[in-house]
Structures are given as structure tokens and as C-alpha cells.
């Protein structure tokens, strides 16, 4: 399995420090792409190239070279991480360009990508032994080291708790609470709010669970699908022992209505909050009633260990 930590922070150098890994931005000249490229640079992310077809040869902010394709950008920089900001209609082509050019971590920001296109991209990622996060994800951050995403910097601080979340703003809100309570994060991964995710809850869990620095995990789910249930069963099966706390949004949502996210819909009992909360209970994962309670429950769990 691809080691997401190694892709994001490389191997420790002689002084025991992680290395900033190079990142490509697809759609770097667009409104959204350019704003977030600046914010990622401010955070210290090592952005080495941009890609915008038709603008190859130009420079972003007079310093970052822009290429016609990811293939060209990879040849020039050797980067293995790419973040995509293109409109949803063009996502599949952008993803193919990246995955066929040796990108090992593809962070798919666009919302409204058709499910069929997402599934094709996921299939290709599997063949290429690459990881795709998203679509419709805020991205991934290793606080203090690298931010490949659109999340604000302020909620996050470096530490030992992994946060996996379907929702973006809840990820910020809960990470902010964790930070205030003294629980920094070792990684946070936005799963995305779409019905089909390149990195499912269970994949994200497997990617982070063996990190020796990890002390606890927070799982922020929401109604729709069964990825929380599957994760809970997996946690039972693997006997993972570090503390985990959950939160599930949408307990009171009406059935058969899409609640903002394409994936947030309850059909019958499939995707209901009750189903997720009861599976979490079986896996001995306490579920907070409100976002503010997550840090409190985590403190309780950590204290009892």
C-alpha cells in the first residue's frame, strides 16, 4: 500500500527532520487555483510547478513555472503530488493526465464531479498504485509541514491526533477545538462529501493507523452511504486499540433529501445516522452529540488509557 506519510513528508533526514515534498497545482491560473496556491505557499508548501493548458512557458507570480501538461511538469520537477482545481467537467481529463504521468498522490478539490468520472479516475489510480483523495475534498494537511488543500491554516496545529472527515468546515471546526484543547494533529484528511471517494474512510484509516507517532484518531462522518459502518467493522476486526472518537452530522436530516453534499442522503435506513452511531458503539467509539464535544470525549478516552 502507498505510504501517504512518506509521500507527504518524505523520509527523515540526518537531523531527524522531514523534508518538504514538491507539489504540482493543476489549474494554477484559475481564480480558485491561484488564490489557494498563494495560501499554500504562505503555509510553506513546496509548490514547484503549475499546469494550465495553453499557458505553458509562463510563470505564476513570476516564480512558479507553468506547464502544458502534468507530464511536462513531472519531467521537469519529479513531483509525485498534484492538487487539482479544474472545473468538474474537466476533472477526469486532468486526473488521467496526472495519474498517467507518475503522480502518486492526487488531491481532487472540485465539487460536482459526475460519479462515473470519479469512478473512472479511481480505477486508474488503483492501476497506477496511486492515492486519490476526493473529489470534493478540502485536501490533506500535515500541520506545520505541508498543506495540500483549501483548508485555512489557523485551526490546525502539529501533534499526534489524526482527523478523518467527510466535511470540510466540520474538519476545521473540530480541529480548532482539538487544537484549543491541546490535541495537535499529525495528519488530517478530507474524505469528501461525494457518494464515491477516491480515499474512503477505511482507506484513510489504513493509511494512518500504523504511524508510530499517532496517539489517537477522530472520525467525522455524516449521513449517506455506509463508509462509517464499514470503518467501524474494520476497527473491530483489526483490533485497533488507540483511542478513537466519532462525530456524525445529519442525525435530524429528513430522509431522501440531499443535505448539501451529493453523498449526504438517507435512503430508507441506508446511510442513516442511527446506523452509523450504533456501529460506532459496537466498535467502542464514543460519538459526540455536537462538534464541541469531540475534544472533551477524546480527553476522557486518552485519560482512561
Amino acid at each position, binding site marked *: 500500500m502507498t505510504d501517504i506519510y512518506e509521500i507527504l513528508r518524505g523520509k527523515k533526514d540526518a537531523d531527524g527532520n522531514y523534508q518538504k515534498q514538491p507539489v504540482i497545482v493543476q489549474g494554477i491560473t484559475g481564480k480558485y487555483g491561484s*488564490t489557494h496556491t498563494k*495560501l499554500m505557499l504562505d503555509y510553506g508548501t513546496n509548490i514547484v510547478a503549475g499546469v494550465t493548458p495553453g499557458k505553458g512557458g509562463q510563470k505564476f507570480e513570476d516564480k512558479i513555472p507553468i506547464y502544458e501538461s502534468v507530464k511536462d511538469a513531472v519531467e521537469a520537477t519529479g513531483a509525485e503530488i498534484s492538487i487539482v482545481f479544474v472545473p*468538474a*467537467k474537466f476533472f477526469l481529463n486532468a486526473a488521467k493526465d496526472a495519474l498517467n504521468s507518475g503522480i502518486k498522490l492526487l488531491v481532487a478539490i472540485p465539487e*460536482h*464531479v*459526475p*460519479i*462515473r468520472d470519479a*469512478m473512472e479516475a*479511481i*480505477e486508474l489510480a488503483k492501476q497506477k498504485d496511486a492515492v486519490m483523495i476526493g473529489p470534493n475534498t478540502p485536501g490533506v494537511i500535515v500541520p506545520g509541514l505541508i498543506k495540500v488543500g*483549501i*483548508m*485555512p491554516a*489557523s485551526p490546525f496545529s502539529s501533534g499526534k491526533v489524526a482527523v478523518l*472527515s*467527510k*466535511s*470540510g*468546515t*466540520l474538519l*476545521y471546526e473540530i480541529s*480548532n477545538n482539538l487544537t484549543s484543547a491541546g490535541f495537535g494533529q499529525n495528519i488530517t484528511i478530507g474524505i469528501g*462529501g461525494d*457518494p*464515491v471517494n477516491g480515499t*474512503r474512510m*477505511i482507506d484513510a484509516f489504513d493509511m494512518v493507523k500504523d504511524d508510530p507517532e499517532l496517539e489517537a484518531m477522530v472520525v*467525522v462522518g*455524516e*449521513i449517506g*452511504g*455506509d*463508509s462509517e459502518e*464499514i470503518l467501524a467493522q474494520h476497527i473491530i476486526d483489526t483490533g485497533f486499540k488507540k483511542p478513537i472518537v466519532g*462525530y456524525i*452530522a*445529519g*442525525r*435530524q*436530516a*429528513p*430522509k*431522501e*433529501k*440531499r*443535505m*448539501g*453534499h*451529493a*453523498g*449526504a442522503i438517507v*435512503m*430508507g*435506513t*441506508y446511510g442513516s445516522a442511527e446506523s452509523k452511531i450504533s456501529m460506532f458503539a459496537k466498535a467502542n467509539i464514543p460519538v459526540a*452529540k*455536537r462538534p*464541541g464535544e469531540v475534544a472533551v470525549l477524546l480527553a476522557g478516552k486518552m485519560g482512561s488509557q
Partner: protein
Amino acid sequence: MRLLEYQAKELFKEFGIRTPPSISSTDIEKGRKDAKELGYPFVIKVQVPVGGRGKAGGIQKCNSDDEFELKYPQLLNMSIKGEKTRAILLEKMADIEKELYLSLFLNRSKRCYTIIASSEGGVEIESVKNQTIREVGLGDVDAQTAKEVANEIGLKDSQEEQFVEMLQKLSKLTIEKEAELAEINPLAILKDGTLMALDGKVMTDDNSNFRHEELQKYQEKSELEEQAEKSGFSLVELDGNIAVIGNGAGLVMSTFDLVTDNGGKPATFLDVGGGATTESVYEALTLISKMKRVKGILVNLYGGIVKTTTVAEAFIQAYNNNLIDLPVFARLMGTESDKAKEMLKDTKTKMFDSIEEAINGVVMEANK
């Protein structure tokens, strides 16, 4: 989008899946013509985008003009689970021997289509017993797989053949229309031994709408929902009296949960999106100002990249233009929130440090 029964059946017909003779209407004039054309007896079926309409009295037998005149208006004015009748379907009754269940759905965790079939249909999927479940990749369902499913639910000979054909047609529909769910329930075996789709449910992937011009006629949105979509929000309208606004689907859902937990009744689920601007929040307030039942507005924003002052500015503009006269209970968290609070000090917006306090305020206001 979630198609109504008659729309799903139009797709069924297009793909050659047999359905009973039926005609849809939205007014009684047209309904009378349909009744004449179809001939008594038939059933009148309410068309609503939710399940459980049989139990709620949304399906009624009709044997005569008198019954028709009585029942048609009743059903047309009916609401089921808060959903008003969108249309009426008149449909010939079928001579049913047995009811089966068949659906194809997009299995999110396995990322493939999955068949569910059962020899016991006619009830909601949760109550369907003896389910046969088969995962089938992303392509068409092949004849061998369809045959195995038919055998597992006890079909043989001619019925097996008919089932295989129907399942393959359903699979074609699912793929071509990019459906997340295509369900035939009940799938009836008639007294004459033939198979027929008596009810249908189809949900398509909204994100693929741009490739499906032909489905646009089924797109059904309230005026408000349409405006919201234009502004890039997601809006779900409900029948409560508290307008819930926030940024990010998860945060709004979470706020919605807490409002309901505390005895409040949301009128909206309104997500202005991760990248709220002064204009977009102003637009959201404009939408809400048009909803007469709203008694209070609850705002929960997590300002990260978006500054909370940007949001406060929208409220100031809304007050200045007399757009809103409703009390607003707000929790603005994050970037520049102190400044935002100062800006809104002498307005009808009450600012709170925690969402719990803001919710208490708005629920008390709405329940006055």
C-alpha cells in the same frame, strides 16, 4: 435527481420495460380526459418524491365518475411527509399473481453497481426479505448473471427469460442515464404468467445533468431552490420556522441537528458554500426574506479563508436596504470575528460566542 413514478415509468417504457397503461396529469380537466381514455376501474396514484405513499392513502382505487370527482381533488391536494402532490397518475390495475423486488444501485463503498432482487416485493426495501445481492462492476449486467439472479429468486422457464431481459434493460437504463438507483418494486408476475413493472423509482446523479439534456424536463425545483442553485448554494426547504444558514454542508447539518435537538423547527438548510462572499450571503438573506413562515434566522459560519467581516458586511447591507426585519442569531467564528461583532453591535443581529447559545436564542424566539 429523484424522478417521480410516472417519470421513472417513462424511462422504463423507453428502455422496453413493461408497465401497466397509465396517464399523468396535474389538473382535474386533464384528469377527466385521462379517465375516459383509460376506462374504469383504475387506480389514482399521488406522485410525490418520497416513499410510503400507499400507507399514507396516496393510492386509491377508482370505479366510477362519482368516485373520481371525489378522490382526484383529495389526492391532488394531499401532502405526504411534507411533500405536496406534484402530479396524479391514473393507472390500470394489473392482475397480480405474485410481487417481486428488483433494483440496481450504485454501491458507494464497493464502487460498482449492485443488484438486489427478492421473491418478496411490494414493501419498502428495508422490509424486503430474502434479498439476493450481486455486485456487478460498472458495465452492463450480462445474461449469465441475470439468469443466476432469476434462479436464486425462484424463477424458471419463461419467467426466467422475461426477468433476464428486464434486468438487462434496467441495467442499460442505469448506465445510460447515470442512475444511482433504478428500482422496480413491485415487479409483478401477473396471472397470465407475464412480468410487469408496477412501480418504479429512479435517482440520477445530479452532477451528470450537464450530459443529460433529455432529463432536464424532469428537473423539479422550487423557485427558491432554483435561485439558490444559481447563486451556488444548496438549499433544502422544510416546513419549520427557523432559517438555518451556514457555510459547508457538514457544519450546516450539524447546526440543523442541534436546532432540532433543542425543540426548534428548521425552515431551511442553507449552505452558502465553503467560499462565502458578501454577495453570496446577501443573496442568501434575500432568499430567506421571501419565506413568510420564517420567524428567526440562525447563522453559523466558520470563517477560515472567508473573513467573518465579509459576512457581517452582508448583514449591514441587508439592514440598510430593509431586506430583512427578522431577528438574527449568529455565531461567527474565526478570522476577524471581534471586528465583525463590533460592526453588528447596534443591529438586529445578536452575536453569540457558542452555537449552543445562539440556538437557544433562536428557538425561544421562534416558539414565542
